[in-house]
Each structure stands twice: as structure tokens, then as C-alpha cells.
């Protein structure tokens, strides 16, 4: 790791005043230190926001839930209120990474973690995302890459938290000295690589992600997330599903099927959702939704297995959300 200076900030105001001249924010540091140890990132000044206590904690409001950006994944996963009403989020935060990482990693940092593509993480490969014209994954090692909507960069959306928050229709609050606060829906927060290969999201350099807002789910809502990886907890998802079902008696009024590891930006499968809307949740409708989720899949040379894995992940997670199946022991967590 290169040598750097560090500004330890105790308030949002103090941190915002330091956000200039290429200084880089550090929250839990799990993603940032990884990139610095790899040598892909070499900031000479870090802004430590980890000690800003006003950005930590979970608050229930009449509208829903407000979570401070520095709340750890473990705190979100273990919160009884989150678990009972926003299960898809406690599941996602409880299955991201390892138990020890979850004690360190923040929800804001989880949403802002950068791509896990191994070419991107290596200082030896300069690709599209680093200002060059080439992607090494299309003709190289791409078993963990995207199977749909990838455009010029098939590295997948890495954040489990973002999948859950997309399913919950959540938004993030961004704060800057110049413009104050603004709120951006998760569905509008991330940028597709073809929209701008050099930016991952719409947050500006002078902004901090300060909190996450989740609207209260409609009565009768049930939700769940499951992640399928190569290893139990040491790795990111190969397929994951964030499911939200608004039930009206035995019929599903509205369904949300969110996916992360399929594409560069977290996405909802409208086809899978249509396969559930207005129908009872049964193994048959859940299976049909899983199949429908792969509409438009264009796997790369080494990841056709994902086209089979995603439908199973979605099928099982729909039934889990509906209370018709136990949590899958072969899913991570």
C-alpha cells in the first residue's frame, strides 16, 4: 500500500470540507484497502468517515426506515425491525461477505464498492473502465461475469445490499456543501457502462452518501434474498435473487424480482415479475418466473452455467419469501 495522509473526521460537515483535491473517502475500508493493496488505487490522502456517529444507526419513521450510511452490514442484518419487515435487506446484509467483514463493512460502502472483475482489480490490466478501449473479459476469463445487458463491460453489479434495496424501492441521500441534500432512487443511482464507462453511479465527487431511505412495504408484503456462490461466504454471488411479494390473500398483487450477478447494474426482471403478478405463488408459478428471468440472456464463453443457476435461485427465493420453502442450505450465509 502506498503511503498516505489521513484526515479523521467526526462530523459530516468536517468530512465535506475535506472532499477536494483527489482525497478519497474511507468508511469501513474493506473495498478501498483491497484496491490500494492491489495497487490499482494510490490516493495520497484519505478522509476517514468511519467515526462520524451521526451517520450510524437505524431509525424507523412513519414513512419507513432510514439507515445511516455507516451502519455496518452486521447491524443491519441483526436488527429485529429490519428482519421482520424488510427481510430481503437483512438477508442480503447477512449473506454478503463473511461474518467478520460484516462487522467492519458499512452499508454505504457496500453500495459504493467497485467492480470485482479480476482484470479491473489488477494493476496489470488497463481496460475500458480505466480509460482504455479494451475489455479483457470477453475473450478472456469470464466465468463470473455478466450474462445480460452488459454492453461494453460485463463485470457484474457486486453489491448484495443494492439488490435488496432495489427490490424495496429504496433511495440514497447524497449530501454536498455546494448543493445540500438530494435523494436518488436506487434504480437511478447506478450508471450502465455504456452510459459512462468511467463512472459507476451518479454521485458527484463532492458528495457523501449520508443515508438510505426505504419506504414502508405495503401490507401483506413478504420478501427474501438468497445468494449462490462458489464458496459459502468468502466470495461474491454467482447468482442472487432479491424477491418482494405483495400478497392479497393467496394472490400475488405485485412482485419484484431483483438480480445482481447477472448484469453490470442491479436489475429487475419485468418478465419474471409478470409471471407472478395476479397469480397464486406455487412451485409452478415460481418456476415459470425463474425461467422468464433469463429472457434476453447472452452468456459469455465460460458462464452459461449462470443461465441455469439464476432460475433456480429465483424459484427457491420466491418460495422462501412466500413461506413455502426453508432457507436453502446451499445458498451462502
Amino acid at each position, binding site marked *: 500500500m502506498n503511503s498516505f*495522509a489521513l484526515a479523521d473526521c467526526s462530523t459530516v460537515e468536517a468530512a465535506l470540507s475535506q472532499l477536494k483535491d483527489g482525497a478519497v473517502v474511507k468508511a469501513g475500508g474493506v473495498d478501498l484497502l483491497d484496491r490500494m493493496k492491489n495497487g490499482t488505487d494510490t490516493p495520497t490522502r484519505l478522509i476517514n468517515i468511519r467515526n462520524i456517529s451521526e451517520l450510524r444507526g437505524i431509525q424507523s419513521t412513519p414513512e419507513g426506515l432510514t439507515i445511516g450510511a455507516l451502519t455496518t452490514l452486521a447491524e443491519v442484518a441483526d436488527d429485529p425491525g429490519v428482519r421482520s419487515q424488510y427481510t430481503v435487506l437483512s438477508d442480503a446484509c447477512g449473506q454478503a461477505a*463473511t461474518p467478520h467483514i460484516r462487522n467492519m463493512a458499512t452499508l454505504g460502502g457496500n453500495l459504493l464498492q467497485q467492480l470485482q472483475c479480476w482484470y479491473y482489480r489488477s494493476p496489470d490490466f488497463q481496460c475500458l473502465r480505466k480509460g482504455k478501449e479494451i475489455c479483457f473479459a*470477453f475473450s478472456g476469463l469470464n466465468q463470473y461475469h455478466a450474462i445480460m445487458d452488459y454492453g461494453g463491460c460485463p463485470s457484474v453489479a457486486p453489491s448484495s445490499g443494492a439488490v435488496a434495496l432495489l427490490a424495496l424501492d429504496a433511495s440514497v*441521500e447524497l449530501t454536498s456543501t455546494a448543493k445540500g441534500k438530494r435523494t436518488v432512487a436506487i434504480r437511478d443511482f447506478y450508471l450502465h457502462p455504456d452510459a459512462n464507462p468511467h463512472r459507476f453511479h451518479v454521485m458527484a465527487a463532492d458528495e457523501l452518501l449520508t443515508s438510505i431511505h426505504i419506504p414502508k412495504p405495503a401490507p401483506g408484503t413478504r420478501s427474501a434474498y438468497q445468494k449462490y456462490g462458489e464458496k459459502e461466504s468468502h466470495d461474491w454471488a454467482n447468482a442472487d435473487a432479491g424477491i418482494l411479494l405483495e400478497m392479497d390473500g393467496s394472490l400475488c398483487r405485485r412482485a419484484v424480482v431483483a438480480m445482481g450477478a447477472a448484469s453490470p447494474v442491479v436489475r429487475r426482471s419485468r418478465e419474471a415479475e409478470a409471471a407472478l403478478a395476479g397469480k397464486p405463488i406455487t412451485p409452478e408459478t415460481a418456476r415459470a418466473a425463474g425461467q422468464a428471468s433469463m429472457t434476453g440472456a447472452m452468456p459469455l464463453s465460460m458462464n452459461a452455467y449462470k443461465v441455469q443457476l439464476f432460475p433456480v435461485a429465483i424459484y427457491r427465493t420466491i418460495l422462501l419469501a412466500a413461506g413455502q420453502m426453508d432457507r436453502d442450505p446451499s445458498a451462502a450465509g
Partner: protein
Amino acid sequence: MSDPQRSPKEPPEATSTATTPPGISRRGFLKGAGITAAGTALLSGVQGLSREAVASTPKGVKEFGPEPFPVTLHINDKEHALQIEPRTTLADALRIQLNMTGTKISCDRGVCSSCTVLLDRMPVNSCMTLALDTVGHQITTIEGISANEQIHPVQAAFVRHDAMQCGFCTPGMVMSCVSLLEKNPHPTEADVRYAVSGNLCRCGTYPKVFAATLDAATQPASKA
């Protein structure tokens, strides 16, 4: 970008910013708001730093480095004075500067948990923790769990069950299990599996780790 496998570009969704939902007070929304920080290492500001380490800067900002500066770390109930840089990880401070080499580094990336220590009695990866972030907090390492030359009941159970082979993952494994028993003195096997699910053991000692930890739970408790 000239790969023939490339799919036609999907139209990117337009980016828009929603307006702030009504009724939520934005500023300091968490102040006094039932913060759920049970059992967490809430890092509430860096204290325990010598005066000269802190240059005078704007309110709410403390500047460190890049040059080395003196700090005091609270490790295993003792104060340790040492010089660190902002980039010094806790694992490096322990192993290189304090010669406490019981904590192992394998991946140095947060993947394997062989560097597990307890920070305010919560397990974390010392390789991904800056030493500076641990000033003012209680650090417990594998060297600190035995008292009066007596190994910890978890360590004793590891010996009885032969729960190690090469032993490189073992200190981290033991710390994860010690932490589990502190929080949950009567765990099920599923609880033990969960507690060590981030600890990578290439020798495959997991079944014996589970048995040892369940056995340790039946022994008289010893808290470091």
C-alpha cells in the same frame, strides 16, 4: 470493445433525482434515535494519541501522517506505545512492530480470517483494519485469551479434538470460536458453522473445529 460476442447495447435508463420524501428530518436524523449498536465496535473518534500527532486543522478534522506518529494501542489489557503510519494495518502493527506473531496473515485481503482479532470483543479481520482506527478500543489477540499460563478452554478442546493440521488458520479459528462462546455459551453446531464461515482452512479441519467448540462449551467458562 471490438469483441464479436458483445451484445447490442441496451438503452441505459435515464438518471433522475427524486425529491426528498416528506416528513423526514434530514439533519442529524440519528442523534439520540435509538441507535442499534449492540455488540459493535462503534468507533467514536480517535483518542489516546499523543499531542504532537495531531496537527491543528479545521473543527472536527484530525490530520495524521503520512509520516509515522506515536500512538498507544490497548492490547490484551496492556497499553502498547508504538509508531505507526496511517497505512499501518492492525495485523502489521501486531506482527511486525509488537512481535505478536500469533495473529497470522494469509490472504491480506479480508478473505480468509486467519488474521482474526477481537475489537471491543467483536471479531474483525486485522489485515483490513487500519491500526489508527483501533486507538481507544480494546484489542484481544490469540496471545491474550489465556490467563495465568492456562490455555483457554477453546484451545484445550482444539488440542483434545486434534482440530488443527498445519495450524496456520488455527489462531483465527480459535478467536472466532472464543467470540462465539462469549456471546452464545450454548451454541448449536449450526451456530459454530456460522461463526467460522469466514475462516478458511485448507487442511479441512472443520468437523473437528465444530466438535471442539461444542465440547469447549461444556467446560467451565474462562473469559480472557
